[in-house]
């Protein structure tokens, strides 16, 4: 339900603001550049509204929600391999902040120190507690990646 409401709002915003403002004007031949984006967003909007209507009708009739209409339809897995469970924003933030810091760190202090710090922190967050293993793995991984970029693929090492 929550996801469908967000999609509905986003679709309305796209149709009323983003597509008109950020799509080139019709050049006078072919299909309008806005046609396919409008079709895609309309599909999203219609499907999301239908899902909301189904949800509201089910609530009004006091009928039990089908698995498909529940907030976490794939909570126990089945359609895919992974049992995904419920949304855990804390978990997401725990791993996204170090990743964002790595991007900033590469720009400011360079690849090697920021990548080392990132891997040390990440292993700790995942639950590793053997410091010798943690440091060894971080050093080896960062060194291998550095060697691969510099000598293997010949690409510029980020931040350097």
């Amino acid at each position: 339900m929550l996801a469908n409401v967000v999609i509905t709002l986003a679709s309305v915003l796209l149709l009323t603001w983003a597509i008109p403002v950020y799509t080139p004007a019709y050049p006078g031949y072919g299909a309008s550049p806005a046609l396919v984006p409008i079709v895609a967003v309309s599909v999203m909007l219609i499907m999301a509204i239908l899902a909301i209507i189904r949800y509201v009708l089910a609530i009004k009739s006091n009928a039990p929600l089908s698995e498909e209409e529940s907030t976490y339809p794939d909570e126990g897995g089945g359609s895919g391999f992974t049992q995904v469970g419920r949304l855990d924003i804390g978990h997401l933030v725990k791993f996204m902040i170090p990743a964002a810091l790595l991007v900033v760190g590469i720009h400011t202090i360079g690849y090697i120190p920021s990548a080392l710090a990132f891997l040390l922190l990440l292993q700790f967050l995942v639950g590793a507690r053997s410091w010798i293993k943690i440091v060894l793995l971080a050093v080896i991984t960062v060194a291998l990646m550095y060697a691969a970029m510099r000598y293997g693929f010949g690409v510029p090492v980020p931040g350097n």
Partner: protein
Amino acid sequence: MEMILAGLMDSLSPVSLIFVFVGVFTGVAVGAVPGINGPMAIALFIPLTYYMSPLAAIGFLVGLNKGAFFGGAISAVLLRTPGTPEAAATTWDGFPLTEQGKGEKALRMALFSSVSGDFISTAVLILIAAPLATVALYMGPPEMFALISLALTVIAGIGTKSISRGLIAAAAGLLVGMIGTEPVTALPRLTFDLYRLESGLSLIPVAIGLLAFSEILIQLERLKSRASSEEAARTFSDKPEDKYVSKKEFFGCTRTLLRASAIGIGVGAMPGLGAPVASFLSYDQALKRAKRPEEFGKGRLEGIASSEAANSAVVGASLIPLFVLGIPGNLAVAMLMGAFMIHGMMPGPLLFEENSQLMYGVFGSLVIASLFLLIIGKFGLKLFCKAVQIPAVMLYPVVIFTCIMGAYLGQSSMFDVIVMLVFGVIGYFMRKFDFSYVAFLIGFILVPEWERALQQVVITSQYDPFLFFRRPVAVILMCLTFFVIIRTFVMGMKKKD
């Protein structure tokens, strides 16, 4: 004929052989690790293929995919945790054998069945792809537009319990794929005035974020419930009859293998079904036709053969719609399509016209990958069994770091790293709320071709709305598209009642 021989000779060049070997080896190793599957491995390794020749790159990725299919069986048999979704049916008879101390025998049966299914399907692909592509050349823009519309509708059902959420995901993929320069006006579209977006979003960071990064985020949530590594240590008996598959046992499964391969080829050639469907369907058929069905689920070799041969047969067959029509039928093939595009080739019927030598080289690499799979699996079985014992606390941080650096490697751009992280978060939410990231990704990949076909139809028809009605194949395909949508809704309503 000259092209065929030249292509085959290319596939036998040392560089090509090495990359196919490395691909198969890596694929088996990563497929054995629960939580890492073939498409995810392809997404992670695609950036490396920038630095390879087209044939070496495609051979490497095809080998990776084939290896991962067998690798998934290793953790399925040893841990009852399928490394890949399609190996789920393998657990039913594989794990009971492991409990009886016959884990090595179960793995060998899985290997031989995988190679058999894969080999038969590759042969079918080689025999029919080129002739079918010749026929497909007669398809014009209306047919291509209708065909891609149908494919997107069918594919919307993959990886979700609801086709409406699948359609939303596919439409979102189309929308994201349209970010960049509009093809007719050559002006920026949906770029929000960010000049970095003017060349569009690259496939590599989007795929790594959706497939690999988000998967690892979810796996990390489940870390505590994972089977311990000690569980895999109680496996092999030393008796030869518990270690090896005899000729009698293998040939006793011939009918099962042939049937499973046929099911795998049929399912693989149809976009949208995928390997898990093939293995479950094949297992079900083997069970129904068995003389002693009560023995299934207790460690029957036929059970392993039916599942593994079917899912491996999907690999080659799923390339048929890609090579003939340019339509990826599943996620792994969508990633391979991306690899073709990175190397400047558009999969489809023209591929045989424009790059025939390369295509026969790819066919050669497919056959070689099957042989390598047999050799690597046979001699490296015990080594790969160790892969299931890698502690997750060591593996996942390295995979996350590889995701970040892999996104960077594609275009040496930190912007791509940011894109990867954004799509990692989007993928996380999509998985939580059951929106098909498979449909999203395939929509993202197919939209340029779809829009090009639409523009060609509009321009050549000179705004004649009846053009479609003069093209019977296009009409049939569009009718099928509407039929699929209506049928799914009707089925959904009936199920609800």
